[in-house]
């Protein structure tokens, strides 16, 4: 197939996202494998298109409302007109619905949660994480065009940057009046700790079992000069505020130490912390996906290890 490979660029608060750059890096690799052009679709002002130089060509349309409805309609229209063979869509809260809706409109497959993509005998095959990251599926489409939902972190954002300016074409999209209207953003409560600025984070997951046991994590965090954060289930229970959530819907953090207590390592959480410098995980499940991401792993009961660790840290600090 000679039709181009597309990526859907996403912007957040006026900036191209890191994930977009990662997709460009991945897209470039795959487009080169297929020997086809790489094009980016950007629903924003064309001034932002200049940073998409890794692509050969940018299709730019301004005035598309930032709702999944509008983006999906615009994307579907362009795909129908120009027939790329595949579109890489960031698998983020920002773009996944738009991708899913566009795929539905096109009656095209939308391969979810791909952590890698490559060409195999002219067909694109994605590696997808399933069942909370416990298994991986190699998935290919049986038709074209195909949309791929690509997880953040497949390639480095730096590999998606370029000094080159791509060719830019402004396109017209006729998006019908949609029934979903963006009103405003609600910022997370401040006045609490900014976990993205911490050198040390102690993360708690479902394994902490009870709100009461957060004390254990807090004790450790205090000794190490850091703060406590959590995976989604802990926040959903209301045991920690939203501002402490790490992961796909929460913060992305890069601390010097990320110490994980009872976190299984589902992809949505990994997304938010995989770039931490030193990742240490304690989990009773030897098969927990987190042990594939952590630098050091402890397959033991956190309720046994943490109290002893706390004691020894106290002693080590001259307490």
């Amino acid at each position, binding site marked *: 197939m000679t039709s181009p490979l597309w990526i859907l660029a996403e912007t957040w608060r006026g900036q191209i996202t890191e994930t977009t750059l990662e997709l460009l890096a991945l897209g470039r690799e795959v487009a080169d494998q297929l020997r086809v052009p790489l094009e980016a679709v950007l629903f924003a002002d064309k001034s932002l298109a200049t940073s998409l130089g890794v692509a050969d060509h940018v299709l730019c349309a301004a005035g598309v409302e930032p709702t999944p409805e509008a983006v999906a309609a615009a994307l579907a229209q362009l795909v129908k007109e120009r027939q790329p063979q595949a579109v890489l869509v960031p698998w983020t809260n920002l773009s996944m619905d738009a991708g899913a809706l566009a795929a539905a409109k096109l009656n095209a497959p939308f391969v979810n949660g791909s952590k890698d993509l490559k060409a195999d005998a002219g067909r694109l095959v994605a590696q997808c994480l399933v069942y909370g990251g416990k298994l991986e599926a190699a998935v290919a489409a049986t038709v074209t065009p195909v949309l791929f939902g690509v997880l953040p972190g497949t390639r480095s954002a730096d590999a998606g940057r370029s000094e080159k300016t791509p060719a830019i074409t402004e396109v017209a999209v006729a998006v019908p009046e949609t029934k979903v209207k963006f009103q405003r953003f609600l910022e997370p409560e401040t006045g609490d700790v900014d976990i993205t600025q911490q050198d040390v984070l102690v993360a708690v997951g479902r394994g902490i*079992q*009870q*709100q*009461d046991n957060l004390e254990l994590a807090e004790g450790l965090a205090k000794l190490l000069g850091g703060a406590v954060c959590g995976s989604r289930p802990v926040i959903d*229970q209301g045991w920690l505020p939203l501002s402490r959530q790490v992961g796909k819907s929460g913060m992305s953090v890069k601390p010097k130490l990320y110490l994980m207590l009872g976190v299984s390592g589902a992809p949505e959480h990994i997304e938010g912390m995989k770039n931490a410098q030193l990742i240490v995980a304690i989990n009773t499940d030897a098969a927990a996906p987190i042990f594939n991401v952590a630098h050091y792993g402890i397959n033991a009961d956190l309720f046994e290890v943490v109290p002893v660790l706390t004691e020894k840290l106290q002693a080590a600090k001259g307490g």
Partner: protein
Amino acid sequence: MPVIADEANEITLENLWNTPEGHRVLSCMQCGMCAGTCPYGDVMEYPPRRIIGMLKAGELDAVLRSQSLLSCVTCYACMNKCPRGIRLTEVLLPLVKEQTFMQLTELPAELQKALENTDRYGNPLGESPRKRADWVKTSKVPVRILPADRKPTDVLWFVECYTAYHPRGQDNCRATARLFHALGVDFAILGHEEKCAGECARLAGETGLYEKLTDYTMKLFGKYRFRRLVTSGAHAYDTFIHQYKPRGLSQEVDHTVTFFARHLDQLKPKLKKKLSYTVTYHDPCALSRHNGLYEEPRQLLAAIPGVRLVEMEHHRENSICCGGGGGGMWLDTYYKMKGYERLSERRIKEALATGADVLAVACPYEVSRFEDALKTVGGDKKMIVRDVVELLAESLEE
């Protein structure tokens, strides 16, 4: 003598006044012994005395809405002291707890999780049922698992959840297996087919879950041939005697403590290693107050060479609950939010005051509860917690 609560199963809040137990309740003289002896009597909005008053006044709804009964750890202390012999913890309190539970719009999160896990995985810890017999791989002696090897067995050992899955419970399992082996007992376990006996779910008010578990376990027992049921779970023992027997469980029932006590003549000569411990024994509510088993554990401990027994201020019938019953095992955060003192901390301070090295227990909940409490009060260098069977096995010749 254990009281077989068969009459209790037929009583409801609707028919209460027409039953002999209802007449006993009516004879309440509001003396307040129940509230006075309740471990949470100072914070319980409606101790038994007030519940009876409200019930008579037709105002039970206020009691149910107050959620007061979530604070009841079903320790049998009130029932034990009632001068009218009202079977509080056997009849009235479970009925009120059940209704409190049914009309709760929101359950405390850990309790909800424990109950959902018990229903789904057969254990409150949420572990896979397939891993329930994994501890067997670490046993030093052979352990027969019935589903794989269905020959009849003399003893069916009902291991229970915390014993099977919790690391400290698995210490108990290994010790128990060694003791059975040393006595030449023909025993087997149910492995992954075993599910929680459900007594704590029942006493938290989730009677529907309890019924489901009982139906399952009675059917399971019917699949195998065994002469005697021996369990490591104190609450399991309690429920097998008082609930399962009226439902048709015909085999003899033992707790590991009563079983080993009965075999003490045979066991004692094998307890060769001297353990120079001063030991204080915590009487677990389900075994002691409810079933009168005060002597057996003490006989076992006294049989270990080198062991010196000392008693806590509150012992035998006056023992203070560890706080794990009636759902309390999963309500620590809820109690904390209400500002209650942790019963396990109160009790551990008493234990430490005896100067003993070892706190001996006989219920699987107690090991983790008291080990946590020791750390919290800073006593974990002064005292260790051991199940009675762990101490016996420690003294056992190789």
